[in-house]
């Protein structure tokens, strides 16, 4: 938990040198200039599919983990659990253990109660504020923003996010807690689809435990189960289920019932693990007395792993072969074409050249597809189609006029070709040359 929180809070302050034209924050989602930076990768908005790919990877990885070990994500890594644990920890330190807390809640209002409850909620809000505060650092230059926050000189958008995230952290981790898992989280509903007989779950050994019943010291264990019906497992359950009824949707695999039951078993001098992590198959085979090894490779896990490998490879391939420049062409609509005095026809185009590298470059734009095409670039100074300058990490916008003797067809297909000053050729862009109404 400390590791996860540490990563969350410190990551935005990592630096990564990208030259003079780009921010030097290692992880930054820059909304105003619509770029996302992740170490050596910078993503333009049209490349958002990389993010989609990463989300698919994350989802399948979650499926794989679930089919192997049950609900480990929920119990150990889900932010909802991590922050709830953090909040409960604060509660325990300030107000004492569960029994003391219950007593405190029932007690009449006193200075002590006011102080303890007030401190708890204050600390919760501080944690919430730190959470929301850290979140906005991913979207702004962190050190600058930190300075602004210290001076209370924060833009309203940032302030709004901090307030919203502080509020949601406070409400979700302070009050909603496992209600979120039971009622709000969609994953809880469909995770059973990933479960099978070989998934590690928390299970009650009914064979050994039943028939349950109260047990007096000294009584024989013959003819009855080991469960003494002390309900310790039910009392500790944060989602309020009885694990002895079998696996249920609400179970977040936190394992508190295992610990509680083992304590009781220890006192009764019985073997531990009446409730334990086990697979359904091993529960079955245990009846026959044979131990079953935990099966990792099953068709299901194999499929998930295969999907992860394929998607991961696709993303990697995409990133490695990512085009570092793009050309986009928009044919003028008004006017569609212009009749020139010598009988030829002219078309206008809006050309955008995307320079995704971190250095200023010049590009060469050529056009083909029609005889006698002449290109002229309209712009300040003496712009030539052979040397169109585009600053690092930006989009160059050019007006281009093509003229040609009136072609036979009213719409001719033409192709724009972009090469950079190193001679590297990029993806072509198909457009049209219009010379008459269809």
């Amino acid at each position, binding site marked *: 938990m400390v590791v996860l929180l540490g990563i969350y809070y410190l990551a935005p302050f990592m630096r990564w040198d990208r030259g003079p034209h780009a921010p030097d924050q290692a992880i930054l989602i820059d909304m105003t200039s619509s770029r996302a930076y992740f170490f050596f990768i910078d993503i333009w908005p049209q490349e958002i599919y990389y993010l989609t790919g990463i989300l698919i990877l994350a989802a399948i990885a979650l499926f794989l983990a679930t089919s192997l070990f049950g609900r480990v994500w929920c119990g150990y890594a889900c932010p909802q659990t991590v922050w709830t644990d953090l909040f409960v920890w604060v509660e325990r330190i300030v107000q004492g253990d569960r029994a003391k807390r219950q007593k405190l809640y029932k007690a009449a209002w006193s200075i002590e109660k006011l102080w303890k409850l007030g401190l708890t909620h204050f600390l919760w809000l501080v944690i919430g504020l730190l959470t929301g505060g850290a979140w906005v650092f991913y979207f702004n230059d962190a050190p600058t923003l930190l300075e602004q926050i210290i001076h209370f000189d924060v833009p309203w958008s940032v302030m709004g996010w901090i307030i919203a995230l502080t509020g949601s952290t406070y409400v979700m981790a302070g009050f909603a807690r496992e209600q979120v898992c039971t009622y709000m989280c969609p994953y809880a509903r469909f995770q059973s689809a990933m479960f099978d007989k070989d998934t590690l779950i928390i299970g009650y050994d009914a064979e050994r435990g039943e028939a349950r019943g109260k047990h007096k010291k000294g009584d024989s264990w013959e003819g009855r189960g080991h469960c003494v019906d002390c309900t310790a497992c039910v009392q500790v359950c944060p989602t309020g289920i009885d694990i002895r009824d079998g696996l249920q949707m609400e179970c977040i695999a936190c394992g508190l019932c295992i610990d509680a039951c083992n304590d009781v078993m220890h006192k009764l001098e019985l073997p531990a693990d009446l409730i334990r992590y086990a697979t359904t198959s091993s529960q079955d085979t245990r009846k026959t007395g044979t131990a079953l090894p935990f099966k990792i490779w099953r068709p299901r896990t194999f499929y998930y792993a295969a999907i992860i490998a394929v998607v991961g490879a696709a993303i990697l391939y995409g990133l490695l072969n990512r085009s570092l420049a793009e050309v986009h062409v928009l044919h003028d*609509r008004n*006017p569609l074409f212009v*009749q020139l*005095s010598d*009988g030829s026809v002219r078309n206008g185009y809006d050309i955008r050249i995307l320079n995704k590298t971190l250095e200023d470059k010049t590009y060469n734009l050529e056009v083909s597809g029609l005889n006698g095409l002449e290109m002229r670039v*309209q712009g300040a100074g003496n712009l030539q189609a052979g040397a169109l300058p585009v600053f690092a990490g930006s989009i160059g916008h050019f*007006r281009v006029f093509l003229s040609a003797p009136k072609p036979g067809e009213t719409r001719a297909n033409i192709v724009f070709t972009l090469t950079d000053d190193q001679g590297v050729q990029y993806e072509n862009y198909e457009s049209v040359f219009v010379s008459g109404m269809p």
Partner: protein
Amino acid sequence: MTQNEKKIDEFTGTETTGHEWDGITELDTPMPRWWLIVFYVCIIWSVGYWFWYPTWPTFSGDGERGGTVGSAQWTQYKQLEEAQAEIKALRAEYESRFEAASFKGVQSDPTLYAFALAGGKSAFGDNCATCHGTGGAGASGYPNLNDDDWLWGGTVDDIYQTVSYGIRSPHDETRFSEMPAFADILSDSEISDLAGFVAAKAAGVDMPDIGATLYADNCAVCHADNAGGDKTLGAPNLVDAIWFYGGTQGEIEAQIKKPKHGMMPAWQDRLSENTLRQLAIYVHSLGGGE
């Protein structure tokens, strides 16, 4: 239906409204308390709002353009003025640089050029698009500003002059020329011959017949011997591919007999000097500028 008598629904124990339709009665469920509180708070709020903000419309009064000014002294007009002042302050730097620069200077400075095009485009849409079209493509009788055929010249200075003073406008400095109506001078058959000669010449065929003599006697003085026109007189080029009023025999005849003359207003008194210059640069940039 009886009044002043409470009717209680047996099943729910809730009071009914007393309305009954075929044995069905309507429960009189009270508004939720929180809702009522919000409602009353809104009413109290609105009282303060009446005094704080401009609320009461009047035909005259302290408020700009009628209406009360609330004690907050806030009006939308003021807000607009403030916003405009902000924009003007932002523009001021470019405006002064633009003012100091020559047309050539603007055209070689990417920042100023972008500034001029943006301003010119907006002014064009407001003032010029009515006749010349939003894309400047014109229409019959209204010149296409995208092509390379210019009646009065297509350099930035020429365009600036045309925009500022107009063509056949009431302004003293206006560009002016007028083609005579040849219906009173030539016979119908002569006009027909002349139109045939012009149409053929435009198509690249020289006809050394009666039309040529007529052309030399009547037209060449303005449209030039080679029919290439004269931009100082606004006389159109008759041999290019662009016809202002149409290039068929009939259309040419009609124009010779009783010429149409377009009129363009002078914008000098209506638009600022910077806007006029921006317009000239913008029109020049449409593609046909010389």
